[in-house]
């Protein structure tokens, strides 16, 4: 009984960690621009596919180049980092195409919701054209678990090793990002831009560069999440990131728009709540997740750790 609970909690924390990554990505962009980047889910998918390819995975029969793959695969950890970087660069491209032109022309910020959604649709469809709609499983021989047992015994409980790794990587990313925001000069500059971009510029901070940095970081977080889910489950198709993107959005609202601790707490809460749904009722998982969201919003309209007012004049 205790073992089952421990297993459940770990599962919940692991998926909660991934939700937190996605939500943090939204938070970074939201805090500097005040808008949601709806391409986040597509970047999540992209990360998973990049990792798959970098590990030496082959393109399936429905892809543009059936059977094609890299001559040699990289070990999972290296592929993971490169895929995160790749997703970050594509996020930069999304900023260039879907956000920057609107800002330059002083357009209504809400329009970026549509343009970023469009960028996401294009990305996912590109993935589908190139890789086909079929599912992919990561090559196991160079996977995260290479050399590790599949199941660990902790306190008498059988724990899937991959879940533990997932949790560790998410924690490292979240802690690293929080420390960077809190302590480093770059993080401080980013927070200054988030509070008031104009004033930050007058203090010598290149606000545009900070906006681009926020996009790169948020894309990298999404790519990281997609790769981890791909490793722990598989890639069920190019659209799989969209679901995580929506879940991340729910977590963002649950935790409080623009709040870093809120995104982390919201992610964990959501993941744990889902994990507590028994397997035979797994169809109710999403229903429970969104029921929690509604309940929290009824009691605290600004989210768990959000500010009371978010309106800017």
């Amino acid at each position, binding site marked *: 009984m205790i073992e089952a609970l421990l297993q459940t909690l770990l599962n919940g924390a692991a998926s909660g960690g991934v939700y937190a990554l996605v939500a943090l990505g939204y938070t970074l962009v939201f805090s500097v621009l005040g808008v949601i980047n709806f391409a986040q889910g597509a970047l999540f998918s992209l990360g998973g596919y990049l990792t798959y390819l970098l590990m030496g995975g082959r393109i399936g029969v429905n892809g543009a180049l059936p059977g094609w793959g890299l001559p040699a695969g990289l070990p999972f950890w290296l592929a993971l980092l490169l895929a995160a970087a790749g997703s970050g660069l594509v996020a930069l491209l999304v900023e260039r195409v879907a956000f920057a032109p609107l800002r330059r022309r002083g357009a209504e910020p809400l329009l970026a919701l549509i343009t970023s959604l469009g960028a996401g649709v294009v990305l996912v469809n590109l993935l589908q054209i190139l890789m086909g709609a079929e599912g992919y499983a990561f090559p196991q021989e160079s996977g995260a678990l290479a050399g590790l047992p599949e199941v660990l015994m902790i306190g008498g409980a059988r724990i899937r090793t991959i879940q533990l790794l997932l949790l560790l990587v998410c924690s490292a990313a979240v802690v690293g990002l929080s420390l*960077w925001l809190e302590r480093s000069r*770059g993080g401080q500059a980013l927070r200054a831009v988030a*509070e008031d971009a104009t004033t930050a*510029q*007058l203090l*010598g901070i290149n606000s545009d560069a900070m906006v681009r940095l926020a996009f790169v970081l948020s894309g990298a977080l999404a790519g990281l999440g997609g790769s981890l889910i791909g490793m722990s489950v598989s890639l069920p198709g190019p659209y799989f990131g969209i679901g995580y993107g929506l879940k991340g959005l729910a977590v963002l609202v649950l935790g409080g728009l623009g709040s870093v601790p809120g995104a982390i707490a919201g992610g964990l809460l959501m993941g744990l709540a889902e994990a507590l749904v028994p397997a035979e009722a797994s169809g109710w998982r999403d229903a429970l997740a969104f029921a929690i969201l509604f309940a929290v919003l009824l009691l605290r309209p600004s989210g768990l750790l959000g500010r009371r007012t978010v309106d800017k004049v």
Partner: protein
Amino acid sequence: MSTALLEVRDLSCRFGGLMALDGVSFSVASGEIFGLIGPNGAGKTTLFNLVSGLTPPSSGSVIWRGAAITDLPPHRRNRLGLARTFQNLRLFDDLSVLDNLLVALERHSRSSSIDGLLCTARHRQAERQRREAAWQLLEELGLSALADRQAGTLAYGDRRRLEMARALGTDPALLLLDEPAAGLNPAEKEGLCALIQELRQRHRLTVMIIEHHVPLLMRLCDRMAVLDFGVRIALGSPNVVRRDPRVIAAYLGGDASGETP
């Protein structure tokens, strides 16, 4: 008054049908306190926005130490040595007083982000220097007791001084002050006057100041320009400006000069 630190040449700015500034020219010499006065809506703040780079001019140029900076974005102008404060104060209200200053001192640190992540000796050294510089400025402006307070919770006069401290943190050669005395009581205004002169000495500043309180400005400034409806109607020492018939007309609503701009 040999070298001009800042020069604005034929600067115009049009907002739709409104000519906010119309062919304004003058130069500010290194080390002087230069006043900018004029009735409400004369274009004073617009001029500051053009000089600091927040608004692009419709025509004309801004020249810094002899080179045009008209096309530079605000952060590049700040790095050249141009800092400003706002009439309606723009502090980072959620950050502490100390952090407000640290943001301004950000670019003076010589350590990179990599240094920061690895906490190298160079990073720790740079951090220490940055904090020392911040504390020194807090001390200078009488804010050190408030260092840990959230900026949004400070009293009005303290907020004004914090905004000045923060601008000074970027180590400017020219400080643009937009109505620094607004909302201060007479005693505080006197204190501000002394403070500005003191800061000019210690930081070897050139100061450009917009102020509605004309007597204060007359005492403080070496030279001043008067704007009315976007046009520069007078330029010179306070004594000259004070007697200019066009200035008297603009302020008293009369028509002493016989011509309206």
